[in-house]
């Protein structure tokens, strides 16, 4: 099911940044309850220029600049969502979730459950992750495993512009809290995006971006594109299947298992720290559900349990890329 049904639809070439901005525009237009809030997202258009001109079209009530107080505005989004609004919050850099952990973990994630299901929590948190800009440890984290680990929160992380649109729509339309993780190094990546305003991708559905029979690479975010290039390079030698995981929670076990039943080999490529994270969960699902299909040790490509250092040679060392994916494939094929 390569790029689910894209062939049949009208598409337009867009970058990830444009796909996100246009999706926000469509959703603001569609539903009065949807509004955006975050630091410098209106006048400045967002520090990474994602919200851009939206404030001009929708006004500063629907596209709100907040003071620099993450605990306050993440909590306010939680309260607003519990009372009939559909806030879409921009948390400038995902590391800043630290400042807002209380409202996220103990309030946003738990309210529906603790209230016996008697409240909804339609909040979307868009935030940017990852290294590669020399932005040092406090602006380069990949924290989606924390969120995906925590019961009551959903987490998605697109690897393509189309996935960005489809997942963001589903996140905004969901009545549950969804974190939407944008890797800051793929904003300029472009691809075909369906123009249909009803184009959604269900939360919890991975996508086989490229079919292959020798090895499965389950990748996320920037590493999807890198893995696809590696697969192209290896064509003729090794037939690589590349899956964009897309949803971290819920996680699409079926697509992974189906692929492993075919290939028998697994590489998991994700920019989280290696220990206790995204990789571990994918590997656990593989071992639980496809153990007898596995022909080789599973390989993990990620950040070796360090913070992202500032200095380019150090960041280059810990930041995983195509080379590491390729080495991992070659070790087991």
């Amino acid at each position, binding site marked *: 099911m390569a790029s689910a049904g894209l062939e049949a639809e009208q598409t337009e070439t867009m970058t990830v940044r444009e796909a996100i901005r246009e999706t926000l525009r469509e959703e603001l237009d569609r539903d009065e309850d949807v509004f955006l809030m975050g630091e410098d997202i209106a006048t400045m258009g967002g520090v990474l220029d994602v919200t851009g001109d939206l404030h001009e079209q929708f006004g500063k009530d629907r596209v709100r600049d907040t003071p620099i107080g993450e605990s306050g505005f993440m909590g306010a989004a939680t309260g607003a969502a519990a009372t009939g609004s559909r806030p879409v919050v921009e948390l400038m850099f995902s590391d800043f979730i630290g400042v807002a952990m209380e409202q996220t973990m103990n309030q946003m994630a738990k309210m529906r459950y603790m209230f016996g299901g008697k409240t909804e929590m339609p909040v979307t948190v868009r935030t940017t992750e990852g290294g590669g800009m020399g932005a040092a440890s406090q602006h380069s984290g990949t924290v989606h495993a924390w969120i995906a680990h925590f019961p009551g929160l959903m987490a998605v992380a697109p690897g393509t512009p189309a996935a960005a649109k489809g997942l963001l729509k589903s996140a905004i339309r969901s009545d549950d809290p969804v974190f939407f993780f944008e890797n800051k190094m793929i904003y300029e990546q472009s691809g075909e995006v369906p123009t249909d305003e009803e184009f959604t991708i269900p939360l919890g559905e991975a996508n086989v971006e490229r079919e292959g029979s020798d090895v499965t690479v389950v990748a996320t975010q920037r590493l999807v594109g890198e893995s696809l290039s590696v697969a192209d390079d290896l064509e003729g030698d090794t037939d690589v299947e590349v899956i964009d995981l897309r949803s971290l929670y819920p996680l699409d076990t079926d697509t992974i298992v189906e692929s492993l039943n075919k290939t028998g080999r697994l590489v998991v490529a994700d920019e989280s720290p290696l220990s206790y994270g995204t990789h571990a969960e994918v590997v656990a699902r593989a071992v639980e559900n496809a153990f007898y299909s596995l022909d080789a040790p599973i390989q993990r490509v990620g950040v070796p349990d360090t913070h992202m250092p*500032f*200095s380019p040679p*150090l960041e280059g060392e810990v930041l995983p890329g195509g080379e590491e994916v390729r080495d991992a494939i070659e070790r087991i094929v």
Partner: protein
Amino acid sequence: MPSIDLETEAGRKEALRRMLTIRWFDETAGERFADGEIPGFVHLYIGEEAVGVGACAALEEDDYITSTHRGHGHCIAKGLDPKPMMAELYGKRDGYCNGKGGSMHIADVDAGMLGANGIVGAGPPLGTGAALTIDRKDEDRVALSFLGDGAVAQGQVHSAVNLAATWDLPVIFLVENNGYGEGTPADEQHNVENLSATAGAYNIPGITVDGMDVTAVNEAVSEARKRARDGKGPTFIEAETYRFHGHFEGDEELYREDDEVERWEARDPIDSFAERLMDRGELTDDGFEELTKEAKSTIEEALEYALDAEEPTPQEAYDDMFGADVPELTRFAQQVRADGGPDHDNGGER
């Protein structure tokens, strides 16, 4: 004894020298960033020199400070060496943080500088903590936390001020109100005119001073330091200042008008202080030239040092994580990727 005594002529000259050193450090950093030599983000302190220098001059050498993402000026004002500072901006091993931190994280704990900080509002809790150590160990020191106007919206700032006020800790909170948090004006982020009003909620003194005047800042901090040392607890100071450059280098500054910038530039804290010294007959035009030249050459040397310094080796990415030797990290370091990754001698073959 304050580290620089502004009551003396020599002290005033030293203050001017530090302000000029900050100015040239940041001019240079800005140029080199624009040339693509310095990675990451760079936030310059140009225009705000009187605050850092006025405040740190009132501190003693072993007092602590915490800083912000705009920390170069605080470092130099506190007496840090521009050489390892510049080397850090270039990500070199001989930088203050071995290349791990960059512009936003320069620190020198031994010099009492507890770190610039990439997290807005994270400094004040750390300042309160340093003051707690001082109090517990009965040391003759204080802590001072710099923060921006934007940071005053952070919950952790208020929590820290409340704690310090409740426990009468020897800490000073110094807000650099430069009118903006990134591109959003301070008056859209706060409902009070003067941020020193914050102090009222904690029953501690709150004062607003002219942050373009090094002496005014110095007097306020001296007073606050005395109060802190007398066991009377924290003071909350707001210094009204302005940053002449954008929020970060490369900022298009669409949020403010040129004439606003010009109006503030006319009050350049370095020029106005130099003029005052000239009026007092303590400085001549030539003297000012001379100081400027010295500052420039200090920074040129720092730049040379940084350019000549060595890059860290990739293996160093795994250093400094823990004090303990952690086998996991050692393994990662040894398996540097070209060597072929984890070994599977436990038998992966079927």
